[in-house]
């Protein structure tokens, strides 16, 4: 089984990620916890009922369209097809701040050391680091920065509310 980072620990990944093939087809294994594309889940909700299922948002998916309470899921993922596609940052933030999602928020796709700090600050608590990257090295990236100016999911108060200011 592959490893993932969850809450700052490297652990076994118990979710099987299902990705659409080139024709858009999705083949779901018959057993186990599955992470499926959000659009697939939308279209196949009934068929998936009873399964342990998590959804994965693509960058152009809109969390606004979620027809159920986000906390129906124990895990939600966002796909970063390229780490330079920053839409998932906003999706993560919206899921946490606007839709109150408290479960595991996982970044999948082009995930490696240099984006973990930003991701963590947008509310991601789990990182499916690219298979060809060293996960032990990557985890250190979470703490590339330990002080921040602006509000974030992990430290909601911006620095100006935390900074002791001489009168």
């Amino acid at each position, binding site marked *: 089984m592959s490893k993932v980072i969850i809450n700052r620990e490297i652990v076994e990944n118990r979710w099987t990620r299902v990705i659409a093939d080139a024709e858009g087809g999705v083949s779901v294994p018959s057993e186990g916890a599955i992470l499926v594309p959000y659009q697939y889940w939308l279209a196949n909700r009934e068929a998936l009922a009873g399964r342990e299922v998590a959804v994965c948002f693509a960058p152009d998916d809109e969390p606004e369209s979620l027809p159920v309470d986000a906390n129906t899921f124990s895990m939600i993922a966002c796909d970063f097809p390229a780490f330079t596609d*920053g839409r998932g*940052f*906003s999706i993560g933030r919206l899921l946490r701040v606007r839709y109150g999602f408290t479960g595991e928020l996982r970044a999948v796709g082009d995930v490696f050391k240099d984006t973990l700090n930003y991701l963590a600050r947008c509310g991601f608590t789990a990182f499916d680091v690219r298979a060809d990257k060293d996960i032990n090295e990557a985890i250190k990236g979470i703490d*590339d920065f330990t002080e921040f100016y602006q509000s974030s999911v992990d430290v909601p108060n*911006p620095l100006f509310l935390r900074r002791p*200011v001489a009168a």
Partner: protein
Amino acid sequence: MYIYDDYDQKIVDQRVAQYRDQTRRYLAGELTDEEFRPLRLQNGLYIQRHAPMLRVAIPYGHLRSAQVRKLAELARKYDKGYVHFTTRQNVQYNWPALENVPEMLAELATVQMHGIQTSGACIRNTTSDQFAGVAHDEIVDPRPWCEIIRQWSTFHPEFAHLPRKFKIAVNGAVEDRAAVLVHDVGINVKLNEAGEVGFEIFVGGGLGRTPMIGDLIKPWLEPKHLLTYLNAVLRVYNRYGRRDNKYKARIKILVKALTPEVFAAKVEQEWAFEKDGVQTLTEAEIARNHRFFTAPAYETLPVEDAAFTAAKAEHPAFARWVERNVFAHKVAGYAAVTFSLKKTGVPPGDATDAQLEDVANLADRFSFGEVRVSHGQNLILADVKQSELFALWEEAKRIGFATPNIGLLTDLICCPGGDFCALANAKSIPVAQAIQERFDDLDYLFDLGEIDMNMSGCINACGHHHVGNIGILGVDKNNAEYYQITLGGRQGADAKIGKVIGPSFAQDEMPDVMSKIIDVFVAHREGDERFIDVFDRIGAEPFKAKVYEGKPIRKEKADV
């Protein structure tokens, strides 16, 4: 000036450590070119034509003398002894070795400088009026607001990988010297009738391939909402800006596609969720930032210094320099001085390490130890006593920064072009030089009055050619370098994109073409009319007729 505390310093130091590690992993083969590229870009490191190029941030154009000395030292130690000041109030090193960049950044961090977000698809260095805080026509000092934006935008986690670069400019004066209308977000700081501060927010301006003037989407924003509102603008852009085509990825394309009204409505909708939230600026934070931008220890001086007046009468060359390079200050007896980095024969915007050392010393001696960079690629000492202008002028002459040409034809804006930039279609520095040489008669130049000439080596428009009264754009025609002319562009509150006048010219034709354009202007000029006013009055036709006189009519696709 803003001074770092332990928090600011820690953030910059952690960046140095992060980048050191990224460079190490890249050199060890653990990061591919493709992975390293966006990472190094967000640290200001490009790979240019000859070597890497490091862009260092000068937030809203402000430097202390110690920082200027550090820039000089790095130019000597790691580069070829000079730097280039850019139209975005940044400074560039053209020849650093990639392996040395972490060390350069570590040295910069010791004087509170860095290369953070000077490039890449993120919120770039915020720019402003080079005369902020001292301008006689200032309504509100924009610098505290620039600093608040700087902090908010630095490593903003949600907006670290936007569809494209994102530039914010802030102006607080009557005249707009920050070019707010050609920025992704342009902010005018205003006062209402009750004397309260508020912001006018424009979005979707920008130059490059599709030049556009920004649209007003918020006529009045209360200061405390500045960051929550910007957050909303950026979130809409981050989510809906195009990512499929990098030429259509800037916010201006999204604003146009949606219409400014719809874009503004989307922003309002988004803003509603976070308005009055935790990022709402507090009185204390606003006051804290203002405390860094208080007036220096000005003396009480007469409005007009007698010795200064006498020196002007006695030395016509000094008077001429004062007329062009000295700007009216809001405090009696003081003036802001522009050092021209546009001496004929020197690439516009370049300064050597020795000149930088001199500038630092002059700043200490004459101007409270502070130096500024203008988007016209010149340096400024903002707080000089009138009584000392003569002495400063003599020093400026000595170091080659006293060319009295600010705002005149030879004070042209010019990108590095084909001499350095890998994207260039044509060289720009030799063309600038040839034009400067053609117009080297100062009396004539003075008579011509204010003319903005801006030149870019390619359509990316780093030299702002679209908003020059005369714009020059390097184009590639069958693998040869050609130059296309635009006329009628302008920046400021009535910013306008210039229009291409016709087929392009070869490099050696350029000085003649420029002479013809100027001749038409002179022939039609009434009194002291400015070039741009004549152009508005007579239109492009007389210029076209003269410039293309006797030329075979060629059809060429205009590439604006």
